[in-house]
């Protein structure tokens, strides 16, 4: 599968040197979704963690 550079013959004319050139907008959408998913997961993960702590809470741990 050819997705990027195959020749360095005309170096001064080469700009983008990465594979999948032309799909930058799709990459952006993917990154934005990943970002939102991370924040949602963080909120869920923290809520679960705190629920566990509250469940095992004792007012006087020394007793």
């Amino acid at each position, binding site marked *: 599968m050819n997705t990027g550079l195959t020749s360095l013959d005309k170096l*001064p004319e*080469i*700009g983008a*040197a990465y594979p999948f050139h032309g799909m930058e907008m799709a990459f*952006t959408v993917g990154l934005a979704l990943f*970002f939102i998913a991370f*924040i949602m997961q963080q*909120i869920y993960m923290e809520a679960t963690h705190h629920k566990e702590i*509250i469940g*095992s809470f004792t007012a006087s741990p020394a007793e």
Partner: protein
Amino acid sequence: MADSTTAIVTIFTEFYFLLTIAMMFFIHVGFCMYEVGVARTKNVQHTLLKNAMAIPVVGLAFFLFGMWIYIALQGWPVASTSVSLATGFEPWSEKLAPNLQDRISGVFWGAFALFGMTAASIVSGSIIERAKTSGFLIIAVYVGAIAWVLPAAWGWAGNGWMTQYLGFHDQYCSAVLHSVAGFAALGILLHLGPRIGKFAPDGTPREIPAHNPWMVTVGLFFIYIGFIGFYAACHIPIANIAAEGQPAYWTATNIYGFPITLSGVTMNFLLALFGGMMAAYMVSGGNAFWTFSGGLTGLISASAGNDLYHPAVALAIAVVGTAMAYYLHNWVEKTFNIDDAVGAVAVHGYCGLFGGIVAGFALWGYPAIYPSAATFVALSEGAGWFGTNAQGLPIVTPWGNAICSLIFAIGFGFIPAYILGGILKAAGLLRVDPRVELTGLDGESSSTTYPQLSGAEAAFEALQRKESKI
């Protein structure tokens, strides 16, 4: 690159910014150590991860929109009402990927992203031991990728409209970044409230002991080191700023295209650090926490003009700013029962605002910009509302710097953060349940922080011996 001069300038600039990025990571090493040291043992892991996760989260937000704000909105809405979506810093830009036609945009982006992470980390420390990570990360996105970026576009770019029309000068971001982040922390703290037990029933503040003061000390030293990288990243390291037809004049410049020497900047950096530490040592009666924080209060107080001050002036401003921050912090803490765990509001907020305003007086009459093709700084039509010099360039004035600094600290720091804090509080994302706070935010993981002290190591040792059957 066929031309050898262009090649040397480009590759030197690329490498220079790459080094500043590496150095600025020490700020985060320092912030992590500092906050973890201040936290109690039961909150260590939460404190570490809350701060550390600001790095990728703010970084990704900066990639998605932060850098675009800085480049696209420099003239908006005063010098220009149009906003471009083809700046080269949109997340879909080819310039931010390996591109043999552009060797600077990526390292330039990296330096800015590190500035943003620093801004977010400033808020992080003040809210430890009772703030939710979820709420903090949302705050971090605002502070790190929006709140300081628009002020930077307007007043920390040679072509920013506040620089051009109001003559604003803030070379190392006293007001642009530190005051914004510090006052944002204050806005959040008003909703967050103090840690349980921080204040006695009569309102007297109590000292919550740091679990590892040595980590705090080393952390602050790392922040000093990172600050050198921060300063370095605020320069254009090499440019020929001579006008067309004039003999070449190669120099480093400040962010406004004005010629500077790294030698002079080094002197001012160190003298401001010295002045801050010595002043803090004096006013606090040798308090170790304040003495080391004094290095930062001194630097931040002098940063706005540390590209051009005399070292003695840098030291004097550092001394006054540090004393002001110390007394103001204690007064605010006692009067309003604000629990700022690391003094971030004072160190960054008060000193940042003070530094921005003072620079207007100390540099009164200096040209705010120096236009040249090499630095991409161009004189806007009608620039210099508060006056111009003989060359027609806008000048720095006390009112220009005071107006902009106050807008940044209050308009971009305090008020939006206060509103955001209220929204997060209403959504239940700001503060942990009191039972979580009392147990410790690490919960059951707490025993793994120092397993040799918690008994976890001994328990495993016993298990190991039992199963070895020797």
